[in-house]
């Protein structure tokens, strides 16, 4: 709008926008509401006002041992992210600060590995994991998640490192900083926000990964994705409990996600949209 919209227009848009937003959010909202209903309440029909009981959250832990898959999700997403960062930071660093003619090509190639359909390697990966005793292990799954997200982590770090103005590093050099000093006092403080953003996005992607985490686990290493998926057969009587489990499963990532909108755009559009 070239000039400030009239208040009437603004109210109009607001109403429409809120309706759309609430409609989209409704499934999540209703799940949260259902999680604090009793089981009979949950199947009694559409009702937005729950009784507000937390018994489901308690049951989910005591009866179903929710804690284990939750911890697995945490370990797998944080672990694979840290591992990916350890491998990716030097790579992104060297590409951002010592680029060669091949740098762009290598980056594109890395991103292209993400485009390979997972099913294409389902057979060999499954067999390899089985033969090496990696099936249903946190180690195996962490390695897997690291590999599949590595291209995105490298890419995101690369874009953040590139944004550090070269002149500031040169100034540090002229100010007498050795390479180590340059890294510690100038480069790292300026790179930390970018590394944090990348960490955030990758934790989200790893937590929600729902193919390999289901294929390669059974009980021990099963994270929340596999845990929830195991309830796919209809057992309507315990829907309130399932809502509680679902709410717990999505809550951390939902909140993290609210803070990572910018990172999402940067990480998943591979720089094509600014």
């Amino acid at each position, binding site marked *: 709008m070239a000039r400030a919209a009239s208040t009437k227009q603004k109210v109009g848009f607001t109403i429409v926008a809120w309706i759309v937003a609430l409609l989209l959010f409704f499934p999540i909202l209703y799940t949260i509401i259902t999680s604090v209903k009793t089981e009979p309440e949950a199947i009694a029909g559409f009702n937005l006002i729950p009784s507000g009981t937390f018994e489901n959250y308690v049951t989910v832990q005591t009866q179903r041992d929710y804690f284990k898959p939750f911890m697995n999700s945490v370990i797998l997403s944080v672990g694979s992210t840290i591992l990916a960062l350890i491998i990716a930071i030097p790579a992104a660093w060297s590409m951002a600060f010592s680029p060669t003619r091949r740098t762009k090509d290598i980056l594109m190639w890395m991103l292209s590995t993400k485009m390979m359909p997972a099913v294409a390697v389902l057979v060999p990966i499954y067999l390899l994991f089985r033969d090496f005793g990696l099936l249903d292990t946190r180690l195996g799954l962490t390695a897997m998640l690291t590999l599949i997200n590595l291209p995105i982590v490298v890419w995101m770090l690369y874009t953040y490192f590139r944004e550090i*103005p070269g*002149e*500031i590093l*040169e*100034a*540090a*050099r*002229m*100010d*007498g*900083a*050795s390479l180590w*000093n340059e890294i510690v*006092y*100038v480069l790292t*403080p*300026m790179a930390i926000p970018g590394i944090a953003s990348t960490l955030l996005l990758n934790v989200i992607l790893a937590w929600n990964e729902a193919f390999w985490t289901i294929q390669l686990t059974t009980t021990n290493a099963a994270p929340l994705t596999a845990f929830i998926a195991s309830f796919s057969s209809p057992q309507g009587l315990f829907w309130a409990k399932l809502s509680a489990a679902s709410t717990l499963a999505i809550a951390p990532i939902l909140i993290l996600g609210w803070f990572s909108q910018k990172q999402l755009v940067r990480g998943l559009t591979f720089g094509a949209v600014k």
Partner: protein
Amino acid sequence: MGNITLKKVNKTFGATTVIPGIDLTIEDGEFVVFVGPSGCGKSTLLRLIAGLEDTSSGTIEIDGRDVTAEAPARRGLAMVFQSYALYPHMTVRNNIAFPLKMAKLDKGVIDKKVEDAARILNLTSYLDRRPGQLSGGQRQRVAIGRAIVREPSAFLFDEPLSNLDAALRGTMRLEISELHHQLKTTMIYVTHDQVEAMTMADKIVVLNAGNIEQVGSPLDLYNKPDNLFVAGFIGSPRMNFASGEVAKPYNCHTIGIRPEHLALSKTSGTWRGVVGVAEHLGADTFLHVNVEGIGQVTARAGGDFIVNHGDEIYLTPEEGRIHRFDEKGLAIR
């Protein structure tokens, strides 16, 4: 202290030769300006002196010491970057203190030096702010402060005023010149603006495509340009050039005459022309005259000289102010 000598310095990037070969001597305490059009290699030359780029061949000496292979920090120079290159996550105080911290000086010594520099540059009240909270001019001063505390043999300025608005540029020009008088340290200053060059330099080095066209004091370059390039680059508005028939009486290929050295008359003169656009600046008026046989000629008139678009006018070049150039573009004296 700040004596810098370049011997046959050459720089190539891959297949492109940016600087074919430069010999240059900069005396201690001089304010030297590298000036030239975009891409002439002046920034590259500065960076070679700083050590931020390696020479492809040739030597650089500072105070008799060969520093060609030495890292920037060891050369005892300080640089003020075009974008200031301040550390965004550090306060002004820490920005200025950084080089001293790298030199592992005592905290007490560092504090004193930072405060001294801040005082000279009027930054004392900003010491605890971050660069993001400062204006362009203030950031400039912080960058200069960071350079001053190093007490270098020479200051290197890479187009420091380009990012400032016109009014601020004028003020900062004076401040930097004043600083030079105070510190008496060698300063090498890169700019594309010939006004900055003329007003600030002791010695100007005019560069074109990696080659030195001429080295001299501002007035030397103004009065005695060695070639067409320097003649056309120094002086604003540009010198007028004419070749062919017009140059014949002067025994050369091309003649040049500055707008300020043309006498104007409505009745008689050497050249006759028709007035085009007249630019009234108040104190001066610059007339763009279409002279028969030559083309567009710019002439300076006093602010009170009244002419209109389309008027007839006569221009007479001042004797002794006509520059003569041969076919190669070199000055004939």
